[in-house]
């Protein structure tokens, strides 16, 4: 049996639930990771991913395979993330508490963790569309044209968003970059 995304969508359009579960299992991890990077927290990402998959189910009879399913799902996830009004506050470092690690490379790993946290904070502090452009470009590896299509804007607008986002990130992470 053909188990390509498009074949599964054709079955889902006829109300085939097992096909939907198969497609959800296949694409959920990447949708979840993308949503987590754009929304900045796991709870919102889970809501967005679940909502996106339910839209796949409900809109399957109308879906036309003009682009790949993955492209369509990415677009749905990005739009849901941008539509989300609520932004959960980031947990402050003090609230995380201290965990004692006795491993020999504990200090190096702690520093790496601190760097990751600062990058996360810097990305989270970006305006939503700049953040989406950064995530689509650097995580999904999309070209400026594809990112523009995802965000319903022009290529020049994406270039501007990326330039401004990188200026903001350089300001926030200057010491890490120059290290």
């Amino acid at each position: 049996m053909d188990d390509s995304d498009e074949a599964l969508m054709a079955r889902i359009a006829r109300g085939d639930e097992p096909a939907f579960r198969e497609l959800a299992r296949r694409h959920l991890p990447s949708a979840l990771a993308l949503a987590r990077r754009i929304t900045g927290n796991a709870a919102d990402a889970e809501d967005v991913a679940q909502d996106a998959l339910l839209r796949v189910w409900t809109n399957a009879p109308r879906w036309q395979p003009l682009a790949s399913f993955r492209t369509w799902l990415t677009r749905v996830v990005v739009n849901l993330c941008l539509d989300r009004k609520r932004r959960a506050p980031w947990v402050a470092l003090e609230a995380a508490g201290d965990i004692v690690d006795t491993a020999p490379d504990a200090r190096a790993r702690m520093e790496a963790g601190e760097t990751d946290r600062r990058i996360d904070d810097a990305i989270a502090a970006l305006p939503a569309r700049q953040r989406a452009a950064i995530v689509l470009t650097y995580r999904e590896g999309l070209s400026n044209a594809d990112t523009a299509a995802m965000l319903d804007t022009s290529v020049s607008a994406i270039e501007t968003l990326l330039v401004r986002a990188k200026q903001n990130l350089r300001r926030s992470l200057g010491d890490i970059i120059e290290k």
Partner: protein
Amino acid sequence: MNEDHIQSKLDAKLDAMLTGHLRQQADGEDASAARVLAALAARPLPRQHRRAWSFWPNVLLDWDFTPAWPRVAMLAGCAALGFLIGLAGLDGQFDDASATTVAAADLSSIVFESEPLTGLRP
């Protein structure tokens, strides 16, 4: 080293840092995926959005228009039977019954009146 060179080097470093950071798997993603799948399985899926009459193309595409051979044989048999009945003249009484009979109608009512002004007849 000039300023542009330093800037491009910092840009490249930022690009590499962002790519590396954003592509690494965050903690707990597997657990999140399991939670979402469980939530989807826990309740019935909503009704799908279907356009009115959207099912007709599928019905027509799924319809098997190829006639089965018994139907073709029956159709040919009926045609042959009708031909033989016509040849044998067994349908004569039906022809008689449906033949049009011109009744002996009263033609006196059909009057051709002359033109009142000129007196011409049609």
